[in-house]
């Protein structure tokens, strides 16, 4: 089985709030000093899910694809170190500042170019924009079935068995191949790469594809092809200053709090 893992490099979600800045002119997050971008957490988990299926099915292959700038090669290397076989970086200035739609369209074009893909695994959402739609849109672009927010994926018979997370529990879904699956954090932590694999990954070359390699035109990718336009990106308004409960003892503070909540008629 050939599984493609889509991996995105994002600004570190654990950037301390005090170091989080937005450049209002470009509507972009200013990279915090000394804080390197990271592989989106859910994509690492998707890679883990793909690798487990690879290990359970001899002769399988995992390819990791990322759409991003040069630095995104680090995210690809990280998944290669976990055990993926090949890496493709979709790297073209024309791809920049796209929306979920153009991202999915570009990734789907790359998956078509690979040709023999049986399944695409994505994280349930990228931990920067938290939209959670690229996996679904890839499925729509390719015309494949899709199962989202998986906490478990196994292969067997003619397809995949996916355990999905619902609001009130889990459901088991059977899907034929080829298919798209998005994986959630309930799946479990991604593996820690073994050193021999880290070194092997460091030696691997990452294929780079541009717009024309994918048979696309500059007008239909990146910002130009976007359907959703980001108008403003701003810091959320801070809540009003906290009112600390007066009192020297916990009892006094508790009394003040309960009085406030009762006065506000919310308790």
């Amino acid at each position, binding site marked *: 089985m050939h599984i493609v893992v889509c991996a995105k490099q994002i600004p*570190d979600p*654990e950037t*301390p*709030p*005090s*170091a989080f800045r937005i450049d209002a002119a470009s509507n972009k997050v200013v990279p915090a*000093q*000394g*804080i*390197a971008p*990271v592989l989106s957490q859910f994509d690492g988990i998707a890679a883990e899910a793909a690798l487990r299926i690879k290990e359970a099915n001899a002769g399988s292959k995992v390819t990791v694809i990322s759409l991003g700038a040069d630095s995104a090669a680090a995210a690809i290397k990280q998944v290669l170190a976990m055990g993926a076989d090949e890496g493709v970086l979709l790297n073209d200035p024309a791809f920049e500042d796209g929306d979920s739609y153009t991202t999915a369209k570009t990734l789907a074009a790359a998956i078509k170019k690979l040709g023999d893909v049986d399944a695409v695994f994505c994280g349930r959402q990228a931990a920067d924009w938290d939209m959670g739609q690229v996996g679904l849109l890839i499925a729509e672009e390719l015309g494949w079935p899709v199962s989202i927010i998986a906490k478990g994926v196994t292969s067997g018979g003619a397809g995949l068995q996916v355990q999905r997370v619902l609001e009130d529990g889990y459901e088991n879904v059977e899907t034929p191949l080829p298919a798209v699956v998005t994986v959630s954090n309930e799946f479990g*932590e991604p*593996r*820690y*790469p*073994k*050193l*021999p694999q*880290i*070194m092997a990954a460091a030696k691997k070359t990452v294929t780079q594809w541009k717009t024309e390699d994918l048979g696309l035109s500059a007008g239909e990718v990146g910002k130009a092809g976007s359907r959703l336009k980001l108008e403003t990106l701003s810091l959320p308004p801070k809540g009003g200053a906290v009112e600390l409960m007066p009192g020297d003892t916990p009892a006094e503070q508790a009394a003040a709090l309960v009085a406030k909540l009762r006065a506000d008629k919310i308790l």
Partner: protein
Amino acid sequence: MPDTTTAPPTPKQGRVAAWWGPAVGLSGLGFYAATTVPEGAAGRQIFFNVAQPWAVYVFLAALIGLMVYGFVHHARLWGLGRPTPGILSEIPHRFRNAMRLGLVQEKVRRDRYAGIMHWCIFSSIVVLTFVTAQVAVEGDTPIKFLHGTYYLIFSFYGDLFGLIGLVGVAMAINRRYFQDFHRIRWDEKIEDSLIIVGLGLVLISGFFVEAARILVTELTQHPDWAPWSFVAYVIAQGLTGFHMSEPTVLSIHVWSWWFHIASAFSWLALIVFTRLDHLFFAPINAFFLRTDSPGRLTKIEDIEQQEIFGVGYVQDFTWKQLFELDACVRCGRCTEVCPANIAGQPLSPMHLIQDLKMHLADVGPDLQTHRHQFGDAGREVAGMAMVGDVIKDETLWACRTCGACMQECPVMIEHVPTIVDMRRFLVMNEARIPATAQAALENLEVRGHPWRGTSLERTTWMDGLEEVPIFDGSQEYLYWVGCSGSLVERNLPVTKAVFRLLRESGASFGVLGQEETCNGDPARRLGNEYLYQILAQQLVETFKAKNVQRVITNCPHCFNTFKNEYPQFDGHFEVLHHTEFLDGALKKGTLKATFPIAADVTYHDSCYLGRYNDQYDAPRQIIEMVPGANLVEMQRNFSKGLCCGAGGGNMWQEEVGERRVNHVRAEEAVRTGASQVISNCPFCIQMFEDGVPAVHPEEEGRMRPFDVAELLEASVFGPK
């Protein structure tokens, strides 16, 4: 543990241990003097009443043969290990270690009762071996000296050390069979009884041989000589009460003699088969003991060229590591002081060493055969995995790398590097890591610090302070704040306190601010040597580029790493822990602790400042210079201090077992009745912040943890 970190001196025991030395020396002098004394003076017939004295040499030959066999057998197993770099460097230092730790037995004395017992037995065996050798020389060589005054002295000290040996045996029997001493029971074998009872029989039978001889010879012929052999004399006197005929006594004599000789050689043969082999292995292992700092873990050279990382198979150990497995005497001292074991967690250093020893004995011969046939020891030969089956993962993760085991080990086994070597295999080769530790390692790799999820920046602590100077190479000191000092809320006040005190002292210093990154210590202790080397190399380069010469650290872990481990990366800096600098500033008078802090405080020695770097005094002296502060020591302190529980990467692990180590240690601190527990380490403080409320749930009157710098800050600057 080596040179720098032995127990505080206890002079009385020192004298006791030194007694046997003069005894041997004096007898040597006597030997020389006696050869000049004319015959006819006091003396005796060697091999009196024994028809086949040459049998002794048959026994001796057999014993030597056995010993050679035993040694070759062991040596072939040790030979499976990798080379041990630097093992023959600094020979004089190593000889000193062998004398100090092997012969003078400084470590053995850390348990007073065992120290006395062991000295009695040890000195008795040494002196009596010498006594026996003199008898052999007198009897079977032309040199004749056992007569006259020296014979009398010889008789006296022979009996004296026989008696001392019996006292030792009695103490051992008492501890083992009457006191039911706890750690003796942890891994008891039949051989233990054989050794003790056997030695008792050898000594007692020796006295009977002597008593029987005295009864029929000296007692009647030279009654003034007899009392010199004072033990045998007393026994002989007692035997006179039985009114035995001379042939009966002679018969008792000859049977005792044979029994004595047979039992003595049998006992000596135990050296080959039992832990009695420590007689040789302990001093040899003391000779092999590392001569550099115990705070330094070995560097894997050319790590990218290795085919296996760390130690996963018995043949991956160095031969020294395999050798020391055989030195273990199962005394249990390591396990007794192990924080994991104290908290009921799955690690006993003694059993770890014993399990490895058994595993070596199990698979060693097959590995040898494989190596003989195919040129390498073969990873598939062993039927079970050493790391995982023989030594469980959770055992390796429970280690705090606190070094208490190594500190106590009387035969100088170095457990911590062995454990870390196996962790290296787990992490780098197998990627088997507890999830939370993995998160810390990933965080180190991605974010350059182990504190996943912190909402602080490296400069947050500077808020509210006046201009904080950034280090630019012109200042004398780099003040190294560290990840914990800047990214963990609780430690910010400590960082600020050190900063204010440094500034007040007039020191010329700067900080790196955003440019600080982890120096790699947690990665190394957690077993990711590769990540450690990357981080260390980067930082050494940064330091060099910035012309750093002197560093003051907030944290004893950073301190140890810079001081002891960065030289492995050609990073040579003068490193001070903040307590050392502040102690010096107080003594020089550039800082003055003026405001009284009226409080009973207790002091917790961090492992990496105390045991690993022998710095017990500077923090205590600071406390003593704070007016009003009254230092109340915990029972476990100085080199016997108990780890807070965070070491060895356990800050980022969930503890498995009955209790949490920090709860145990917090209990010990609370028991002093002090109102503050003072430490010098950001990890210790966090562990106390968590542990004290757990063991003392009421907020009222609860002890509070502080850093030495926080205490001093309050005394220098007064109440905030």
